[in-house]
């Protein structure tokens, strides 16, 4: 112990929990979930405005891998090694997960090149990159469905399937219309959440630009489809060394068992090397 320090306010607010080096235990407390008893059949929407919400993507990736779920990760934004490096800090090896068949990783940056330079018989998941007119994302959906539908041998090797997408705004900037992306999410939800009783997590950026109709349509349309919305925002007052942003949690469409209606919580957070700490607004330990 390096000298005296103030009692940990966060622990007092949320109840003490054993620290572990995997994912973000405090976020699990806020969401009232652990890998053992994760809910199924849910769509979680991650949204960031004026800040980078990708730490939530890393959290859910390691969370579901630790929960022994089969994960299909449609990674359009970064390379495999980027996610792998961060996941290792959180105690998960993506390479090992991929090798044992637990993780199906679509590396958008790499495989988009294949669309143009490799002859494919079946439509490539990112086939829409070749199409001149506004197409649809059916090949991508078929890829997801094939990746997560359990094999015919009947043995349930993994707990439940999970689809993770980072991120959907990239699809808009690649020329897909908002309705095409909403259709893709609709079909994924129908298959992954309802048919296979799995979960889906997707990240969308909120540009904050009221003129960007497509992005607004996508964001609001997805919000209505979601069970849980995690929205990270930069502080309105600007950059702060000790408080990196604000997280708003909105529970929509609660199941009968929870009987919670549209409960919403807001916390502030600070991203550290291997963890994210959350605290009530104005209660950052740095300023108390």
């Amino acid at each position, binding site marked *: 112990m390096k000298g005296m320090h103030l009692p940990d306010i966060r622990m007092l607010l949320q109840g003490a929990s054993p620290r572990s080096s995997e994912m973000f235990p405090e976020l699990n407390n806020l969401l009232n979930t652990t890998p053992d008893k994760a809910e199924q059949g849910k769509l979680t929407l991650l949204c960031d405005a004026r800040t980078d919400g990708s730490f939530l993507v890393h959290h859910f990736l390691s969370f579901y891998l630790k929960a022994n779920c089969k994960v299909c990760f449609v990674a359009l934004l970064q390379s495999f090694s980027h996610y792998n490096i961060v996941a290792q800090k959180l105690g998960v090896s993506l390479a090992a997960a991929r090798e044992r068949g637990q993780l199906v990783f679509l590396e958008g940056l790499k495989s988009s090149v294949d669309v143009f330079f490799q002859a494919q018989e079946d439509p490539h998941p990112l086939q829409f990159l070749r199409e001149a007119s506004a197409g649809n994302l059916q090949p991508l959906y078929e890829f997801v469905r094939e990746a997560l539908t359990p094999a015919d041998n009947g043995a349930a090797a993994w707990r439940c399937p999970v689809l993770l997408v980072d991120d959907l705004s990239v699809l808009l900037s690649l020329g897909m219309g908002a309705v095409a992306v909403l259709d893709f999410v609709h079909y994924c939800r129908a298959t992954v959440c309802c048919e296979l009783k799995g979960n889906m997590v997707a990240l969308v950026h909120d540009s904050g630009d009221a003129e960007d109709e497509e992005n607004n349509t996508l964001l*609001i349309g997805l*919000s*209505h489809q979601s069970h849980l919305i995690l929205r990270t925002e930069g502080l309105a007052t600007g950059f702060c060394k000790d408080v990196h942003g604000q997280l708003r949690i909105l529970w929509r469409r609660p199941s009968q068992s929870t009987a919670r209606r549209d409960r919403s919580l807001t916390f502030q957070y600070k991203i550290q090397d291997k963890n994210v700490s959350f605290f009530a607004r104005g209660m950052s330990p740095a300023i108390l």
Partner: protein
Amino acid sequence: MPSEGAAGCGRWSEMLESLLALGGLVLLRDSVEWEGRSFLKALIRKAALSGEQVRILGCEVSEEEFREGFDSDVNSRLVYHDLFRDPLNWSKTGEAPPGGPLGALRAMCKRTDPGPVTIAIDSLSWLLLRQPCTTVCQVLHALSHRTPCPGHSPAVEQVRVLGLLHEELHGPGPVGALSSLAQTEVTLGGTAGLDSAHIVFRRPRQRPTHQTQWFSILPDFSLDLQEGPRLECQPHPDPYTSPVDPTTHLTFNLRLSKKEKEARDGLTLPFQFSSEKQQALLRPGQGQAASHIFYEPDAYDDLDQEDPDDDLDV
């Protein structure tokens, strides 16, 4: 907030009945913050418990999820047209309805069994994103103003269309068009854990009436009416028991006596040019003493007889 007990049950039933009574299109406007599917399900439950058949065009949630929470009585009266599983026919199994969702809606128009029917559309937003607004409005109009089926009584049958609309998704044009088609409009909102419904009734040949109702929805989709949010800021009561007269304790006179008024009126103002004054000015020196200046220098005065302007070269 405490519920109202037996009286409350009657009131929520009345409220839902009034929403369903007008017939035609009931437009439910919700938002991300205040979702409307629960209220839609409450309306459907009410209609089903009145013995009606309810047909649901389900585009946004699975049948299982939609039926969740209803008891078997209600569920037996619901017919769910599933457009959730494969609306665009991507699975190529041919299960998708011919003509798409609007074709399914039009087919609902053509049913032949009598009796009042309620059609619920979950959601209108889903249709509006994929079909032109005019087409959707035309189908809705045809639905809510159905001509009677041949062979039955010529009276227009009671058709009720409950449409869920996520109003943030659309511009003012489509929302306005649907609003003008609706006989009843319910906008969902709320505050501090309590839900509210702002209701507009458009009865024929009457002015629209507005009503705001606070409620909470129970797990079985019955409503519990509430009195409203506790008012946190009451207006402050007046701290002064008697008003203070501001005209007391003045340093000047606000009122004039009659004599003072006469004296004031008789006064000649210095710049008022009367004929006497004119004469006096034209004949100076008559009866006028020369003006004097009285000056007493004090110790610090320096009387200099020199003309300070002497050095000016004018």
